[in-house]
């Protein structure tokens, strides 16, 4: 009799997700799926609200990366107020936003590596889950845990200084920004008491890349062969091909590195990207229209960004990038666990960008807002920590939103995560009659590499149990566990 194993929801991933793995009568994997209960009501909720509310309204969508939503909505609103499509802001406005964004990238990537990914690496996928967690890291590897906490703290303080506050930041407004950075704030970030200063952050970011490379050298078999599959890759890149996490043109490459979306203006993203609906998941499946639904799916996030860009415009990260690219002879990297390597190189790049911005006197200037001829439609894209984030709005004569379309990073990575689950399911579950904690965690490790955020931004006490359900071929539950 065939069986279906259900893991619900995924541990250490925000929000609710469910993995089902169907085994046939011979215990071979017949089907695997990552089902995600994503909150899609938000696009309808914002209709009728004034467009200028969007930067502060949409950040409520997510308690994990509110800054990304804040900035993507602000960029779309820039178009509506006639401030251009990314190059029309004042230098102070654009650089303040960039500082906010790189602060967010730095803290988010640090959290992911030190507190989500490192337990799997430090203790092993098969380790007791009672130890394989952030508390275990604090106990056994205190220095790493301290670095993670302090890097998060530093990034959060950058966000507070640029967005104005930690909850519902208001820094970015249509056409610009509502504050600059004071000399006192700048100096604190540059020369704050150890360890909360930018030089220490850069030093620790470099050390984290080295940590991963050392780990990779000792565990090449696992890191290079876990959830490897060919994928297209998509991200923003700077017009000259450099890595740019705040603004650029849209580029996609195929698994061999051939450009399949050649640096197009994202204001017309809908000409190139479609969204497929499947009856077994609330989350859509985006694809490149030129390749069709079956072959047009793509990966976004750190791995994709380092596959699409030609170089990194900061020296220390560029040096690491060259080593990273050499490992695959310059070809796109399709190894899921190398997502961690790419993420740490981006962490280093973010720290370098923060220092470069802090040393820029434009941050203390006072021209903060640009306006121009009003438009009735605007698209804002940004490279959020987990990948490309799309915000698209249309308005009426009363400035009310009449249409909103958001494609979040995790939605873009829907099919790649399903591919990763399928790969691991086939390699770990095939022929096994019993399911161990390590096998279940293997599936989660594959998903965690993408750092999906399924947050519904509400977390009140008593929510989010872990339920494991075992079903037979006719979906009868034969076992169920709840954590």
């Amino acid at each position, binding site marked *: 009799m065939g069986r279906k194993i259900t893991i619900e929801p995924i541990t250490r991933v925000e929000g609710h997700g469910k993995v089902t793995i169907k085994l046939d009568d011979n215990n071979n994997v017949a089907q695997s799926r990552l089902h995600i209960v994503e909150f899609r009501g938000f696009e309808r909720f914002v209709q009728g609200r004034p467009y200028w509310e969007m930067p502060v309204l949409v950040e409520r969508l997510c308690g994990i990366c509110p800054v990304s939503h804040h900035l993507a909505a602000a960029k779309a609103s820039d178009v509506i107020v006639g401030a251009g499509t990314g190059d029309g802001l004042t230098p102070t406005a654009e650089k303040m936003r960039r500082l906010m964004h790189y602060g967010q990238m730095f803290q988010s990537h640090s*959290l992911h590596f030190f507190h989500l990914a490192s337990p799997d690496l430090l203790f092993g996928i098969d380790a007791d889950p009672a130890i394989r967690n952030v508390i275990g890291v604090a106990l056994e590897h205190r220095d790493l845990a301290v670095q993670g906490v302090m890097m998060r703290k530093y990034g959060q303080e950058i966000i507070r200084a640029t967005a104005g506050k930690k909850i519902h930041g208001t820094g970015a407004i249509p056409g610009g920004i509502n504050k600059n950075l004071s000399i006192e704030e700048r100096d604190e970030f540059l020369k704050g008491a150890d360890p909360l200063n930018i030089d220490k952050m850069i030093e620790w970011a470099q050390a984290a890349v080295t940590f991963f490379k050392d780990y990779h050298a000792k565990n090449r078999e696992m890191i290079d062969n876990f959830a490897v599959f060919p994928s297209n890759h998509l991200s923003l890149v700077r017009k000259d091909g450099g890595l740019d996490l705040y603004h650029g043109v849209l580029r996609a490459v195929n698994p061999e590195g051939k450009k399949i979306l050649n640096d197009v203006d994202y204001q017309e993203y809908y000409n190139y990207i479609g969204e497929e609906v499947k009856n077994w998941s609330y989350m859509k499946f985006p694809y490149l229209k030129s390749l069709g639904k079956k072959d047009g799916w793509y990966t976004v996030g750190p791995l994709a960004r380092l596959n699409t860009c030609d170089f990194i415009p900061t020296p220390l990260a560029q040096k690491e990038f060259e080593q990273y690219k050499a490992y695959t002879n310059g070809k796109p990297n399709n190894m899921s666990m190398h997502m961690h390597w790419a993420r740490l190189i981006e962490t280093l790049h973010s720290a370098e960008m923060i220092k470069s911005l802090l040393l820029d006197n434009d941050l203390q200037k006072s021209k903060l807002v640009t306006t121009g001829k009003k438009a009735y439609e605007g698209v804002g894209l940004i490279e959020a920590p987990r990948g490309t984030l799309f915000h698209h709005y249309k308005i009426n004569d009363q400035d009310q939103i009449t249409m909103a379309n958001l494609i979040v990073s995790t939605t873009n990575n829907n099919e790649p995560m399903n591919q990763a689950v399928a790969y691991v399911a086939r390699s770990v579950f095939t022929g096994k009659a019993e399911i161990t904690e390590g096998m279940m965690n293997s599936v989660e490790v594959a998903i965690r590499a993408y750092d999906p955020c399924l947050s519904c931004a509400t977390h*009140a*006490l008593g929510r*989010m149990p872990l339920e494991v359900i075992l079903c037979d071929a006719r979906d009868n539950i034969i076992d169920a566990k709840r954590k």
Partner: protein
Amino acid sequence: MIQNRILVYGYGNPGRQDDGLGPAFIERLDADEIPGVVTDSNYQLQVEDALAVSQSDTVIFVDAAVSGDEPFTFTELEPSNETGLTTHSISPGNLLALCRDIFHKSVRAHVLAIRGYQWEFMDKLTLDAEKNLDLAYRFLKKKIHDISNSELH
């Protein structure tokens, strides 16, 4: 007598109706400017909050509760090594454990869980949650007075 350093930390999303009970509580407390009390609020607790906790003698976490006793519960909290289902946010017990293991500091801690009822995309608390907030606030102000005047142990 050395005064207790008290951190009151409210968390939740004010854009999701009663999930905003924690931050709403902190807004009231900030307006009252009680000496010796430090406040903070955020969408959810994060690992870096272990630093602020380590700089306190007593910490009181204020959160919304989806179930349980009305109008609120006030319970003492112990460090917990059992991680929750996500570390994009972290439980108060985990935070105490991190504080203990990273900063070698044990902190007396409580959770004030205020009962909420609705969680849609709206700024405003429900009327019933507002009433619970009033009662919880009166309770905690008295409690803070007691704690801040008690001897450190």
